[in-house]
């Protein structure tokens, strides 16, 4: 009975929590860490009234000097070394509601009070928040069990485990590890045959070979690109009423896949996205990278165009600061950041760096700013025709408009919809002059000729990106309360003072240049070896995907409100290794994958869990659920239907009529793809903002409107309904049945075994095989199902197993 297990476990936790009460920081009980523990608490509970924004009583908790002297009240908030004399402690402990601090919310917990007390007793020293200091290269810590170590990573992990009296879990068995690395590197499960082949004469060298083989597989890029697409809010439409498609967005997606597969240095990868049009040399690839700027929301009909323009910049500043720097600079749009030392000036100075980026488009020209021609000569010929076409169309519209205004209201209304052409055909002559009508007819003919000529030209090769930029950007002002109608002081491009600040040197930008050079400067600063946020943020993202959580659990927020790193020294070690290895990401993947830490079993250990229930110290590998894409792709692998074609335009899985009925124009913007295309990997599914694909959404495919730092991992009945009842799953179960029939003949036991093997990649348990065989018998004998129906049900059951859905 699982019930009993949980009761025991919970009882255990209660006992554990009781034992912890009043104890400070069980992970490093010896001393209080100001930056990791005290400052976040002060920020959360005190800054609102005594912080950067307000200084009630004349002191602020982000400035030690104001705390150790008499406040306006005459009391001294903090007397270093003497908790008893510190007014702060008296006030937070007070039983009197009118006195107790903080005045709002719950009183501090005993543990929090104890933390502050210990900190004051120890001298109330302020140290800088961990992330706001340069990366430090730490020496590898000493450990007792040196035999366990496979890489530098392991020393940092093991040292902490040994300190806490814990042992790392044993290495996972070969088959488990093989399935894990396949899924973690390529996103796809191995075939049972691959597992057997690799597990044969298993050795350390063989494991290394497996890792290298998988890192060289193009499926690696397809899997890991999705990580980046989440972070940069990738979608292929604009949202809002029309939710129009962004032409060529998929080329940006392919750019990311190819960059990861080619192991493009991460700093170059960033440079290309930020300033791919300003680099030397500019390449089709680097131009495609600037699609980064064009992935966000775009309202083609904004109520307040100026506000919309700045919402566009906010999207860019937010994405750059969170995705690349791990900072929530967006919080400083309307006022200085309430918690982190980021000012409104920092925000607008960053905005000034990207001020030459033009809006995505305007309603009358939705491509000019965002479609870059890779072949200018062909483009010019197209352009010339387009110009002629435009002139004619303008004249045509003029004639039409003058006629339409004379028509009855219902006809006028009809001309705004799909009926327009019909109304004009039938009624234009009646409401215009003979002469104009003749001209109209003539222009129509000319237009036809132009269209024919256009069709004869070779197609333009275009990519989504920064097709137009402002060489001389408009001035940037600090906007009061974030209101674009209230410009304040003018600011120039500069980098956040928190990270050393500085302004770009733009003297090298030649007269008449196509762009301002500001983004190039920003790119160089972001990608500089000395930028201490950039490498930390990306290595943390890699770690997140290999362990189910980052070393910093809030990957987009390394600030005071984020979660402190569980292993700060390891994070810095990885960051320095990235830079040392010339920003090669594959080298970092490999380093993590080859570590003993990654290779640990995910087996539960009651003793370790009692000491470290959250697995903060990594005493085992975490059991992880497959992502939405891994679920869908894994089903296709099991059924044998996966089409592994690389790259190209996105495809449209068939959606049921009831799903399309949620649209105001059912089916609008959703294409038809061939069965072969629909069997491609999930990363190739068209991402339409207003029409999420149910199977992906139910397994936590993210909201694409803003950067997603880490996906939710929910468990809900909608997943079961999708996996059992959706038409797609029915089809996949049928395909799986065909496959096992083909491979095993009609023997039921052999089919059941094969089914389980295909779904889990591993040799099945006899009891599970028996269960499936028994199910088929029950369905046939007890419920009158045909043999085929019963066997298909068996396949569907196999696809619903936790051994499929989870990575050990």
């Amino acid at each position, binding site marked *: 009975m699982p019930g009993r297990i949980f009761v025991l476990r*919970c009882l255990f936790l209660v006992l554990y929590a009781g034992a912890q009460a009043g104890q400070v920081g069980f992970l490093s009980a010896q001393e209080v860490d100001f930056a990791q523990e005290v400052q976040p608490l002060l920020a959360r509970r005190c800054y609102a009234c005594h912080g950067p924004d307000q200084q009630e009583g004349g002191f602020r908790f982000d400035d030690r000097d104001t705390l150790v002297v008499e406040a306006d009240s005459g009391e001294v908030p903090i007397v270093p070394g003497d908790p008893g004399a510190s007014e702060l402690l008296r006030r937070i402990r007070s039983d009197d509601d009118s006195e107790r601090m903080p005045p709002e919310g719950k009183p501090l917990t005993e543990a929090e009070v104890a933390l502050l007390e210990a900190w004051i007793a120890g001298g109330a020293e302020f140290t800088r928040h961990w992330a706001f200091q340069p990366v430090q290269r730490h020496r590898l810590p000493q450990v007792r069990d040196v035999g366990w170590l496979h890489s530098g990573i392991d020393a940092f992990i093991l040292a902490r485990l040994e300190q806490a009296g814990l042992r790392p879990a044993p290495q996972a068995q070969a088959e488990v590890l093989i399935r894990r690395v396949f899924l973690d590197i390529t996103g796809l499960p191995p075939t049972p045959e691959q597992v057997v082949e690799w597990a044969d004469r298993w050795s350390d060298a063989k494991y290394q070979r497996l890792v290298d083989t998988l890192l060289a597989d193009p499926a690696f890029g397809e899997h890991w690109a999705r990580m980046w697409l989440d972070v940069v809010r990738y979608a292929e439409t604009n*949202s809002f009423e029309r939710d129009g498609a962004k032409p060529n967005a998929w080329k940006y997606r392919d750019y990311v896949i190819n960059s990861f597969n080619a192991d493009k240095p991460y700093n170059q990868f960033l440079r290309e996205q930020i300033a791919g049009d300003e680099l030397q040399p500019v390449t089709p690839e680097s131009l495609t990278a600037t699609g980064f700027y064009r992935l966000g929301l775009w309202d083609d*009909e904004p*109520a307040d165009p100026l506000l919309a323009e700045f919402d566009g910049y906010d999207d860019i500043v937010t994405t750059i600061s969170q995705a690349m720097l791990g900072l929530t600079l967006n919080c400083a749009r309307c006022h200085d950041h309430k918690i982190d030392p980021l000012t409104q000036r920092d925000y607008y100075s960053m905005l000034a760096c990207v001020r030459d980026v033009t809006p995505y488009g305007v309603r009358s020209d939705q491509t000019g700013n965002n479609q870059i021609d890779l072949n200018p000569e062909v483009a010019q010929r197209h352009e010339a025709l387009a110009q002629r076409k435009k002139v004619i169309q303008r004249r045509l519209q003029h004639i039409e408009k003058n006629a339409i205004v004379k028509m009855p209201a219902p006809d006028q*209304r009809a001309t705004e919809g799909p009926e327009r052409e019909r109304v004009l055909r039938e009624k234009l002559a009646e409401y215009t002059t003979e002469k104009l009508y003749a001209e109209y007819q003539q222009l129509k003919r000319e237009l036809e000729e132009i269209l024919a000529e256009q069709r004869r030209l070779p197609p333009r090769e275009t990519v989504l990106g920064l097709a137009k930029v402002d060489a001389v950007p408009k001035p940037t002002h600090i906007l009061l309360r974030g209101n674009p109608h209230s410009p304040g002081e003018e600011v120039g491009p500069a980098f956040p003072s928190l990270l050393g600040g500085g302004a770009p040197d733009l003297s090298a930008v030649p007269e008449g240049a196509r762009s301002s050079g500001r983004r190039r400067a920003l790119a160089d600063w972001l990608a500089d070896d000395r930028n201490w946020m950039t490498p930390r943020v990306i290595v943390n993202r890699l770690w997140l995907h290999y362990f189910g959580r980052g070393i910093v659990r809030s990957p987009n927020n390394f600030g005071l409100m984020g979660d402190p790193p569980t292993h700060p020294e390891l994070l810095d070690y990885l960051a320095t290794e990235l830079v040392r290895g010339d920003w090669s990401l594959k080298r970092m993947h490999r380093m993590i994958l080859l570590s003993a830490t990654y290779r640990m079993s995910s087996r539960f250990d009651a003793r370790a869990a009692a000491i470290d229930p959250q697995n903060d110290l990594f005493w085992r590998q975490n059991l992880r659920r497959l992502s939405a894409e891994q679920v869908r792709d894994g089903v296709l692998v099991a059924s044998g239907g996966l089409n592994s074609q690389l790259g190209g335009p996105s495809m449209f899985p068939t959606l049921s009529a*009831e799903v399309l009925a949620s649209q105001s124009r059912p089916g609008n913007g959703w294409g038809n793809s061939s069965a072969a295309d629909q069997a491609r990997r999930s990363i190739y599914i068209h991402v339409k903002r207003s029409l999420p694909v149910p199977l992906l959404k139910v397994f936590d495919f993210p909201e694409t409107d803003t950067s997603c730092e880490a996906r939710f*991992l929910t468990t*809900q009945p909608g997943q079961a*309904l999708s996996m059992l009842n959706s038409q797609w799953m029915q089809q996949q179960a049928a395909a799986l049945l065909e496959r096992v029939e083909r491979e095993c003949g009609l023997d039921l036991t052999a089919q059941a075994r094969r089914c389980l093997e295909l779904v889990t990649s591993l040799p099945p348990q006899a009891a599970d095989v028996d269960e499936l065989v028994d199910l088929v018998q029950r369905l046939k004998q007890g419920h009158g199902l045909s043999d085929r129906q019963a066997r298909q049900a068996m396949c569907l059951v196999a696809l619903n*197993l936790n051994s499929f859905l989870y990575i050990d």
Partner: protein
Amino acid sequence: MPARRDFCGRTRREFLWQTGAGFGAVALASLLEEDGFFCKPARGAEAVQANPLAEKPPHFAPQAKSVIFLFMYGGPSHIDTFDYKPSMIGMDGKTVNVKTFGRGGHRNQGRIVEPRWKFQRYGQCGKWVSDLFPNLATCVDDIAFLHSMTADSPIHGSAMLMMNSGRILSGAPALGSWVNYGLGTVNQNLPGFVVMLDPTGGPISGAKNWSSGYMPATYQGTVLRSEGSPILDLQPPLGTTRRVQREMLDSISAINRRHMDARHGDDALSARIASYELAYKMQQHAPEAVDLSTESQETLDLYGVHDPRTDDFARRCIIARRLVERGVRCIQLYSGGAHNDDNWDAHGDLEANHNKHAGATDRPVAALLKDLKRRGLLDSTLVVWGGEFGRQPTAEYAKGTGRDHNAYGFTMWMAGGGIKGGISVGATDELGSAAVERPLHVKHLHATILHQLGLDPNRLSYFYSGLDQKLVGVEHVEPIREVIG
């Protein structure tokens, strides 16, 4: 830092990630709770309150348990419905100076389109209501009218997002998601936030209107249909009976339990096993909730079922009541869908458009209020009526009666759920072109809805993107006190 670990030793965020919440997941929580899944408080009451899955206590005693939002998509004309403008009588066709802003842009002048329906006084409060709503007019003593509503955008796309999520940009959670996040849901077997669409189609931006935005997808609205399978993928395919599905679930469960037994301490595995049982229960309960066969003939007639004009909306209104009875927190019904005259967007022929949509909804909405009241449910059910904006007093075209959008002033109403009846708040100018007295913003409406449900709109927050995000925005917003009973 033990203090940060409140949820069985996890941080709040991890707990959410691992278990999710909302649709079904709350049910999951209570199911698991029976199994002793959730640990009891370690210190004081803190840990119990922190469980995000269970039905959560409100911030203060709520007056409403559920909210039904009757969304008049497209934007009904306030001066033709509830905002009586006697001074416009006789002005038809006159050109006046009036500032308007609609999809046609900013204008300073326009041709008056006199309200096309007669108004009469109704109820003890003597409220003027147009002939578009003869049935609803008999309920005015239960209704609080908000005549001075304003919104940030007169464009459908952004205005819909604003009315549903408080922001003109997509990506934020819908009102119903906030309610589910704040209160959890009481019914194990139904989603807590239900959306019922018009048969002509969804509103523009579709699913964005009931998205959970940056919250887990489990808080998003679930589209419920009155015909066919009520919820997507709820029903097994043809040929799979309930007993067959039970057999399959038993096999899944048997194998999954063996899998779990080898993996002590991973709660996700047992949660997933339980989620299949919940799915099975939902398959039974969701169809029952939309099944009107147990409704009396008198009730069906009251709402207008079988009258072709009102049949569809009548059925959905009865289902809304049935969902309220079953503990669903937030139900949104769309009157109108798709484009043009399939909804209230009366740009062409105002009369034909509003006669059609008012005709389809007047009787069902009145019946809903009366039915809730006689069953003693109106006191605890907040009913909200309105569109994403109103319409202009002037004509959009040189000829005809069509009106463009108007976000400067429009009318919405609320009833039940602790709202005072028979009152009106705020006013527009004598043409109804803009709110002039006690201007109200969409966020005041949202604040009032949350407040009636027992949630402090200025306290209900979700940490995302470095900020404590709120439905009503970062600045303090007062509920509309005048309408609170």
